[in-house]
Structures are given as structure tokens and as C-alpha cells.
């Protein structure tokens, strides 16, 4: 076996002095980092799954997410649909930037990168709106106005002459209830949002670099590819968050 001594390099990919994965160390590190980050999100979603499975009741997503700017209620999931579309769209522009990078086309890279940054910023804006809206409904990381056990109280308070909104706020502030749903929602979407935010920041930096011609000088646009991987990963995570929080 290994005691066989052969010529140093027969040109096989695993023989050393080579890149067996056909990827530079930077790309490899990004891939493995993403794998690692995937486990972080997995653990969070696992916590979500286990707690949801163990809970005796759970908020109905159709009720929670039924608002969009301009529509106070009655449009379930429309807004998150828009958010999903924005994020997928920005993923597409990112791929287009990478593709342009392969053709060493600086102007196109910059164009698509700017679109990607805009997409990311729009997504963040949407998330900010959604959070604000939920806050205004009385939700926070430790308050869950959608908890089914609050419904009778809200009804009671409404019967006492309060508006539905007031009654909800009163109930959520005074009655102990299970707020796992909102805790998990804000934690996980927050963690995802944090990833989007850092992605946008990184995208801005590399857009500026691309404008300045750094990658042109370097001769390749691999940096765009690496950052692109990260950006798609953020999209990927959203796909799961979307399914598990909004649909299931």
C-alpha cells in the first residue's frame, strides 16, 4: 500500500499540489462556513420544531400574518409573499453578477450588484415594517397577542366596551400566556435578518471594490462568487423560515 513509492505527482487530483475540490481555499472556507451556519439555523429551527410539537396550542399563521401596508387585515401571507419574491429576485441578480464576473465584465457586475444591494435593503425594509406592525399589535419577544388562550379574555374585554385593539393590548400585558411563538419568531427572523444585514454590508463593500476595479486588476471576480454563495445561503434559510413560520 502506502509503502509503494511512486513518482511524486501523477497528476491525480488527490496527489497534492492540487485542488481536489476544484475550488480555491477561500471558496472552500466559504462553503464550509455556510455548512456550519446551516447547523446554527438548524439548531434554532430544531428548537422551534420541538417546542411547537410540545405545545398544547399554537398561533395560526394565517391570522398573524394577514396584514400588508395599506391593508390592515384580511390579506393573509400576501406581504410575506412579496418579501419572498424580493429575496429570490435579489438572489437572481446576484447570480447574474457572478455570471458577469466570469465574463470579466466590470460594468455588468457593478450593475447587478447594485440591484442585489437594493433587493437586500428592500427585504430589510419589509422586515422592519412587519416587525413594527407586529409590535403595534402588542407582540414582542415576550408577548404573544395571538396566543389562543388569550381569546376569551379579549372577548371579555371587548364585551366590557374596549376596542379589539385595546382589549388585545390589555390581555397581552396582564394575562400570562404562552409566548413561545413570538419569542421564536423574533429570534429566528431576527437572526436571519442579521445575516441579511451583514450580507448587504458585505455586498456594498464588494460593489465599491468592483467599481474601483480591484477585481479587474486581480484578474478574476472570485470574491463576487464567494459573497454570492453567502447571499444565496441567506435566501436558502429564508425559504425554510418561510415554510416553517408562515405556512406550516
Amino acid at each position, binding site marked *: *500500500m*502506502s*509503502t509503494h513509492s511512486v513518482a511524486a505527482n501523477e497528476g491525480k487530483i488527490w496527489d497534492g499540489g492540487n485542488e481536489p475540490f476544484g475550488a480555491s481555499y477561500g471558496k472552500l472556507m466559504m462553503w464550509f462556513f455556510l455548512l456550519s451556519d446551516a447547523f446554527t439555523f438548524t439548531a434554532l429551527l430544531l428548537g422551534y420544531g420541538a417546542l411547537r410539537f410540545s405545545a398544547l396550542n399554537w398561533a395560526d399563521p394565517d391570522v398573524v400574518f394577514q396584514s400588508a401596508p395599506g391593508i390592515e387585515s384580511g390579506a393573509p401571507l400576501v406581504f410575506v409573499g412579496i418579501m419572498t419574491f424580493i429575496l429570490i429576485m435579489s438572489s437572481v441578480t446576484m447570480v447574474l453578477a457572478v455570471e458577469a464576473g466570469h465574463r470579466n465584465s466590470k460594468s455588468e457586475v457593478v450593475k447587478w450588484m447594485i440591484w442585489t444591494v437594493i433587493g437586500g435593503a428592500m427585504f430589510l425594509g419589509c422586515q422592519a415594517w412587519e416587525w413594527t406592525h407586529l409590535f403595534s399589535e402588542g407582540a414582542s419577544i415576550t408577548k404573544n397577542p395571538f396566543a389562543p388562550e388569550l381569546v376569551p379574555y379579549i372577548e371579555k374585554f371587548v364585551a366590557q366596551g374596549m376596542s379589539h385593539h385595546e382589549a388585545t393590548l390589555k390581555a397581552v400585558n396582564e394575562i*400570562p400566556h404562552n409566548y413561545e411563538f413570538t419569542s421564536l419568531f423574533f429570534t429566528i427572523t431576527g437572526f436571519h435578518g442579521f445575516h441579511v444585514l451583514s450580507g448587504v454590508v458585505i455586498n456594498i463593500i464588494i460593489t465599491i471594490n468592483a467599481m474601483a476595479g480591484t477585481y479587474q486588476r486581480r484578474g478574476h471576480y472570485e470574491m463576487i462568487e464567494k459573497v454570492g454563495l453567502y447571499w444565496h445561503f441567506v435566501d436558502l434559510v429564508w425559504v425554510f423560515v418561510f415554510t416553517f413560520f408562515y405556512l406550516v
Partner: protein
Amino acid sequence: MKIFSTKSLRIFAVGFSACMFFVASAFGQAADSTQKASGNAAAAGGEYAKYDAKKGESIFSIKCSSCHYLYDSEGKGTGPSLHGVTKRAPNQEWFYKWIKNSQALIATGDKYANEVWNKYKPTQMTAFGELSNDDINNILAYIETTPEPAPKAATADAGAAGGSGVAEEVMGTSYYVLFGLVIVLIIAVILASLRVISTLFRSKGERLFNWNNINGILFLVFLIVGFFWIYVQFANYTRHLLPEAASEHGVLVDRMLMITFALTFFVFVVTQAMLFYFSYKYRQQDGKKALHYADNHRLEFFWTLIPAIVLTALVLYGAKVWTQVMFTDEDQEKKALNVEVYAYQFGWNIRYAGEDNSLGKANYMLINKEFEVEGYEKGTNFMGLDTKDKSAMDDRMADEMWLPKGRPVLMKIRAQDVIHSAYMPHFRVQMNAVPGMPTQFMFTPTITTDEMRLKTGDPKFDYILLCNKICGASHYNMKRRVKVVEPEEYDRWYKEKTKAYFTKIQNKVDSAANSGMAQLLK
């Protein structure tokens, strides 16, 4: 040529100062313990003489002793030592409030309460809402009228082997410290002299020591001495191990343990012997060359396959025992004696199902709430029992866990604050107590406490329930006595216990056994 090089001197200095450090500590300790005056006992507490110190003692031993000692426990218990506490606190009323809920008292801005809090915070005292003012007076009576025990040396009853009383204790300590000192000294002397001798030899161009031989031989010596030492340990320590399992499934567990022990010990002896013997045998010697021998697939195949087969057998057997122990069907559970242990920092509340053999439900939000049930007196609901659940009404509270021999026991385990673990080593029973997630363990005690006392030859033997999951400062002192008795004796005790739970209510239930109360229970 220097006889004492700076290097050897320095090694010596390090070792020596380390030893002196411990010797000094030991004597510091000796001096300290001899100074412990046998202070004048029982002087205080005159005004508490009218209360029942005996009752107070029993409550103290259950509720207080995890964290408090009576005398001189500087640094030992989690809380202060209590003798003389009535002189420190403002008045009797203060104790009622403090013991029932110290945090609430602190929040009111009470001066002394805050003083105590500032001294001990953030360690909090468990709230004992269930204690009545009378109970508290009884405890105080016990605290203030109990004389300080004479120093250990006089009583000299400390445990079977541990040995000893203060004087011997100090002797023991010094002995060990001196022992350590001597070893280090010897090593230092050997080192220094080796250095001198080898320098002498080296100056003549010779090597005195063949370290390969020395280390090789030391491996052999280590092997022999080590095995002898292990033998000595088995000879000395096996008698201190747990006595035979006192439960039905415990016998299975023990059998499994013996098989695993035999197997692993055999492998242990063989592989360690091979390792050290090879190290000795194949040490480098002049004229000997190593064998170039890189692998042997047949050999490797066998020593993969054999452990795999053995382990498969172990796993299957283990899974069988585990399944037998842990999986109980509902019928069995209904027939079994239903007992609940409710862990809190730092103690256990024990509840028995009533005549319906069904434990009432409980809700953590009701703990220590005043409760009022129609027809009952007001009381404090210290286990958070569901006052609407009829099966809770006849549940009984006990200070000790008594179990009838030969009857399956379904132990329901709950925790009030943090994770604890209900561990009863003699029954081979253990299960964590998780807040918000009741767990259970079913077992059948087979040996009564008295029988076990005969078997172990220890007249003071007792089964014990202790906490085995880190739960806070007094984790090490969270215990409850368990007593296994003949079924008839258990029945007698159980009937007596009917008075113990829902103290105030139960008195009434008894006095009005034929009234509406009894009907309510049905």
C-alpha cells in the same frame, strides 16, 4: 564541578515550598480546630421554652438543615448558623414574614431583612409559605434550646472507616501531608544525587544510565505494582460498595453490571499487561532492530469483529434490561402505589395518593397561595395542588418516604424550580426532576430497612433519597430518608399520615369524617 547546580536546587525549592505550604495549612487547621471552644450551650431561648422544640426539630431537619447549621458553620452551610438568631432579629413577627417569603419582606424595605440580604445575596432563602406561625415558633424553640454538641473528639463516633475525631483527623491530615513531603524530598534528593553522579560519569566520557532500560523496567514495575494496588483496592473497597439491590429491577441491573464488569476487567488486565509488557520487552537495546510490519488484514478483521460481536451481545442484553425497567404499561401503573416526590431548592416534598390511589393534579401557579375550598379551613397550598381536582383532596403529605415491601411503587417526580435528580442508589433508581415536565420511575422494593440492617450489619442503615443533579449551593445536602417496611406496618403508618397533609383541612376532615367533606372526596 558544582555539587548542587542551580537547576537541581530550584527543583528542590519548588517541591519543598509546595510541601511546606500544605504542612502550614494543615497546622493552621489544627490550631483552628483546637481553638473551637465548647461554648456555653442552651443559655438562650428561655422565652421559647413554651413551644415544642421536638416538633421544631423534625421540621428543622426537613426544611432547614439543607442550608443552615445550628452552630459555628462559618462558610459551611449556604445560610447563616442559626443559634442566637432570635437575639439578632427584631421580633417574632419578623421571622414569620421572613421564613414564609423572604423576598417579599426585603421588598417592603425592612431594615434587618435587607441587612441579611445584603450579606448573603444573591443566595435567596427558599420560601416556606406552608409553615404556620406555630411551626415557626417550634423551630425557633429548637434552635435556641439545643445545646452545642461537644467537639467531635469527645464523641468519637465518626463513621465506620472515615475515622476519627478532631485529634485523629489532624493526625491523619498531617500524616498525609508528611507522606507527600517525604516523597517529594526523596525525589529531590535522588534527583540531586543522580545529577551529581551522572555529571561525574559524563566528565569521564561514560554514560551511567541507560534510560531506555530504566524506563522499560519501570514500566514493568508499574504494571506489577499497579495490578497489586488494584487488587488491594478490590480487597479493601468492595465491602464498602452498595449492598445488594433492594428492588426487583435492581437485581437485573446488578447482574448486567457484573457481566459488564467481568468482561471489561478481563480486557483491561490483558491489554494493560500487553501494553506495559511490550513497552518493557521491546525497549530499544543495542543490536536489536524493529520489525517492519505494517499491517495484517486478517488480524485487524478479527479484532474488529470480536469486539463487535461482544458489544452486540451487551447492547441487546442492555436494551432488554432497560426496556424491562423503563417501559411500564398503564395497568401496572394504576395498580402501583402512587407516590410523588416534588423537588425544590433544597429539599423534597413527598405526597402519597389517597385511598383512590390517584395523585391529584398540581399547578405551579398555585404554590403557596392561600386557598379556600368550601367547607374547608383556609390553608397554604405549598405543593400547588389543584383545589378543583377531587383526587387531590385525599392526598397525603409525608416527611419521610415509607414504602411497603413487595408492592410496585410508581414514583412521580416533579421539580419546582430547577432540575434536580431523584436518586435512590440502594434501589438502583434514578430519574431527573425537570421543572414543567413530570417524570416517573416505577420499581418494587424487596428488602425492608430492618432486613437490610441485618444484612449489612449496620444498625443505623437507612435507605436514602438524594439529589444527583447540580441544583445550587446546597445541592450536596438535599436528602430525605426512605424506609421500606412490611405492608402491614406501612398501612399503619399511612393511616397515621392521613393527618399530615393539608394539615388544617385534614384535622377537620377527620373530625367530620361523616360530614359533607367525605362526600366531596367521592
